[in-house]
Each structure stands twice: as structure tokens, then as C-alpha cells.
């Protein structure tokens, strides 16, 4: 069983104060902390668990600059056997389509029974790379998958619909599964576990080694162009209750009472 996991290295923006860069084509990222995309944490865990059950090899790959090495090393500590970090300057400015083109070219040349991705990355919020990659490799795929069982060259799985409804489906291998958060419990990785994998080399692969045409990567390979990013307009918004925490809480209690909001 050859499992390939695609990991995205993303800036943590959930609590950060974001500002738009001077070109207005992106946000300023210098001060942001980067880590593995939240959804992908569940993908690497699932790969490790499948390997533990049915045997095989787990390969992790990320299209990200060298600084992402810590993330890839953590993936090794989480149970991956090998990791590749793919980056060339020409890949700058690529959209999901351009990134999927690189990944598909890389994966085509290696054995793959199962490819795992997250459903969505919190930076671009696109939820597109998995499905694009599968189409380029001509294998079936599914997103938002919350349960997987591999048996008899098939993947049986459950995927989320809305309102507490799920669909149970199956696919022939090879296939691509984009996982949903919560499908497993990502293991705790100790510093010791990370230390154990320090000797494993993580190759840096450039686009010339992958053998993809420069015109297909980065900005020139992209189909979507970001014209402008902006902070959403403030709008009406909430009435912010000012004051020290105790004062604000006390005032809020009164407001709730006035509004008949205390049952």
C-alpha cells in the first residue's frame, strides 16, 4: 500500500491582526507563524493509521519553501516513511491549479494506491487542490471524508453532507481522499519522536527535477489572478461593550436581562 499525503504549509491567521501588503495583492506575512494546515494534520494521522492496519509506505510531500522542513519532519515523527519538499522560485504566485500541476507531475512517476489531502486550506479557503489533482491523475476522488476503510483494493468511506446527513460510498484504488477534520484523533508527538527522525534526509526537489514545463508553474501556470485583497468593510457591526472585563461582563448581564434574554 503506497500512500502519498499532501501537506500544506500555511500561515496561522485565525487570531492574527492581518494587514494588506502594499501591492494589495496579498496580506503581509512576515510576522505570521506558519504551521501545517489544520485539515492536513488529520490526513497524515489517517495515513499512519492505515499503514498500521494494512501495511505499506507513507510518503509526504509539500510544495513549500525550505522553511517548511520542520513540518515535514514532524510528519515523519507522526509515522511517515519519507518526505519531499518541492520548491523553485518560479512556483511563486501559483494558484491551486498550478500547484496541482506540479504535484501531479511529481506523483505520476511514483507508485500510489491512495493519496490523502485535507479538504480545505485555511489560507486560500479554496478546497480545490485534491479534486484537481485527482482529475489530472485520472483517479476517482472524494472530499469531506469522515471515515475510511481500505479493503480488497477498495476504499469504503463516509462523506459529510449538510445537516447531519452523510453518504456512504466506495471507490476503487488508486484513488484520492480529501479528509474532513475530526475523522481521527491526531497523535501527540513528543520531542523524542521528532529527535528519532532527525537523521532522515528530506530532499528538496526543484521543478527541473520534476520535469515540468516552467510555463505550467507559478504565476504563468495559474488560471486565477488575484486583482486585489482587502479587509472586509466594517459595516454596522456589533455594539462593543467597553471597559475592564468585569465591567463589560456586568453590563452585558444587564443588557441580556433588559432584552429578556435570560430564561
Amino acid at each position, binding site marked *: 500500500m503506497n500512500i502519498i499525503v499532501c501537506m500544506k504549509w500555511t500561515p496561522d491567521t485565525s487570531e492574527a491582526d492581518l494587514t494588506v501588503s502594499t501591492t494589495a495583492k496579498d496580506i503581509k506575512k512576515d510576522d505570521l507563524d506558519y504551521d501545517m494546515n489544520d485539515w492536513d494534520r488529520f490526513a497524515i494521522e489517517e495515513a499512519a493509521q492505515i499503514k498500521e492496519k494494512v501495511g505499506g509506505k507513507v510518503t509526504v510531500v509539500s510544495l513549500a519553501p525550505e522553511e517548511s522542513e520542520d513540518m515535514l519532519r514532524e510528519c515523519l515523527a507522526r509515522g511517515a516513511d519519507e518526505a519531499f519538499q518541492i520548491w523553485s522560485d518560479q512556483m511563486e504566485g501559483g494558484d491551486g491549479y498550478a500547484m496541482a500541476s506540479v504535484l501531479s507531475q511529481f506523483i505520476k512517476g511514483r507508485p500510489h494506491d491512495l493519496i490523502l489531502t485535507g479538504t480545505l486550506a485555511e489560507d486560500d479557503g479554496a478546497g480545490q487542490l485534491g479534486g484537481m489533482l485527482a482529475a489530472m491523475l485520472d483517479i476517482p476522488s472524494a472530499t*469531506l471524508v469522515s471515515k475510511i476503510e481500505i479493503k480488497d483494493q477498495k476504499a469504503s468511506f463516509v462523506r459529510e453532507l449538510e445537516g447531519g446527513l452523510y453518504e456512504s460510498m466506495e471507490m476503487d484504488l488508486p484513488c484520492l481522499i480529501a479528509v474532513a477534520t475530526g475523522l481521527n484523533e491526531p497523535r501527540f508527538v513528543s520531542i523524542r519522536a521528532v529527535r528519532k527522525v532527525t537523521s532522515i534526509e528530506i530532499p528538496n526537489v526543484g521543478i527541473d527535477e520534476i520535469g515540468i514545463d516552467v510555463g505550467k508553474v507559478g504565476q504563468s501556470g495559474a488560471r486565477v489572478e*488575484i486583482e486585489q485583497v*482587502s479587509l472586509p468593510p466594517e459595516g454596522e457591526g456589533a455594539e*462593543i461593550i467597553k471597559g475592564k472585563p468585569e465591567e463589560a*461582563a456586568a453590563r452585558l448581564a444587564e443588557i441580556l436581562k433588559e432584552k429578556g434574554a*435570560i430564561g
Partner: protein
Amino acid sequence: MENIYVLAEHRKGVIRDTTWEAIAAGRKLSSELGVELTCILLSANAAMAETLSTEAPRVMVVENPIFETMNSEAIIKTLKEVLKPSGSYVLLMGASNAILDFAPGLSVALDAALATDCFAAEVRNGKLFASRQMYSYKINSLVSFKDSERVVLTIRAGSFPYAPSDAVKGAIENVACPIDPTSLRKRFIKYVEAEKGDVDIASADIIVSVGRGIGDEPDLDVFQSLADTMGGVLACSRPIVDKNLLPKFHQVGTSGVEVKPKVYLALGISGAFQHLGGIKGSPLLVAVNKDPRAPIFRVASYGIVGDLNEVVPVLNEKIKSLKG
């Protein structure tokens, strides 16, 4: 662009609301571009096209039992054939969980550009623009499409309000199913319903809801106690369920439970679209969050910018004393 298409979404034999909103978006672009709107229906029952024909001037129907559900492989292969002769077009559909399963693969098969989860779209000087969100839904992004003849857009729910049209009577065109369903590598087995729990947040009037802001090892009793004091129930956002802190039936949102309370207190919840999508009936929404830019403050009536660990215990005591 020569054509505008809307792909209808259905489930268990019923056209879903995402379809009407995609039609609303399609109507807007169709008037801006001056081209006709065509609705595409892939269904096990071609009669479903009747409802669509009152809303779109033209409906194309492919009827086959495989389209009982929205099987992504069947849809991608079929649309690839059906749209082959179509020249340049925009294809619109809802940004639902079923459509998330095939829109990206479809865009590759159609050799089209893709923008997912768009909340606005417009044509300026003949050029198509779409707006979507990035970076934890905190940044808006205006995008265009590089010399692309074909564009696929998925539309965020609630972005294009739909009103029934004054009875267009669209022509219905039947198209033979171009694929062999037995050759598919992906197969639907059955629908599964989530387990019902012992708390029904869907019918609660007062909801105290907690999100990732409560931290990795929270003391949930504090929040349960506040919920009890307020006479409400405890609910949560998705990451809380993912971390097994509360069972799934407590989760508010598009993939969780739809609630319609009178009061909704959001504690450490950023206000992602999929979370807000589960809150109906415009309750009195109050948010406590330490990030003044959290999207939740844009929809809340009242807010406190601060650490919930400091705010919540005091709030609980104050409410207790006010209740007397």
C-alpha cells in the same frame, strides 16, 4: 462568454435551494453579459426539470438512474461530454458539500478556471470578476480569470438572494446520457444519518456556544454553568467536536445542527461562514472574542473584546445576581 450554465443540485428527489441561488447569480451575469441562461439537470427523474423550466429560459436534462445522487465521477464525465460543443461559458453552482466533491475535478475536465465559494460576481467591460474570502475568512479577495474561455464558479449560500421569476416557460431539452454508469470507479452505497443525542440544541431558545478560543484543555463546567444560569443549552463550533470535547449533536453549523434560538452567545468563536450558516432566525447574537477583527463581530448585536476566561465567570455571577 457565449453561455451561462447553472448546474442544478438535488437530494432525495428535491431540487436544493443552492440551485435557486445559483440561478439568481446566473441571471445577474446573464443580463450583464447579454447571453442566455441554461440550467442543466442530471437526474434519475427528468420530470424534475419542470420546476426548473419556470426559472430558466432553457433546461438541458440528462436522465439516468445513476443521477439519483450527486456522484462526482458520473457528473464530471457527463458534463465533460455535454459541454464539449459549448464554446466559452460560465458554469455556476452552489458551494455545497456535494458540489465541493466535484467542482475542482470538473474544472480540470472542462479545462476551465475555478473560483470556489464566491460571495459576489460581476462583469466589467466584458471581463468577469468574482469575490471570495481568504485567510480564515478575514480577507476579501477580488479575482479575475486569465484568458480563460471557461470559468466555473461555486456560489456561497445567501450571497445571491433569489426571487421566483414571473413565469418564464423554458424549453426543456433531453440529452442522451453519454456515459456508461457501470464503468464508474466510485459508487454510492447509502445515506447515513448522524446520531441524535440527549440534548436537542435545534429547539433551544437560549444557546451558549463555545469555540476553539476556549483552549485545548478547557474546563467545560464553567460554560455549562453559564448555560444553566441562563436557562439555555451548551453548543459549540466544529473544532470542539473534532477534539472530542463535546459530541457531534452539539455542533452548530452547516455540517452540524441548524439552530433558531432567541439568544446566541458565541464564546471564542471566530464566526466562519459554515458556523453562522447554522444559526437561523436572526437571534440576539452576542460575541466574546479577543480578536477585535473576528468576523463574528460583523454579525453580532453586542460584543466584548476580551479574554473569555476573564469575562465568562463574572458574567455568570452577574446574571445569577440579576435573577435574584
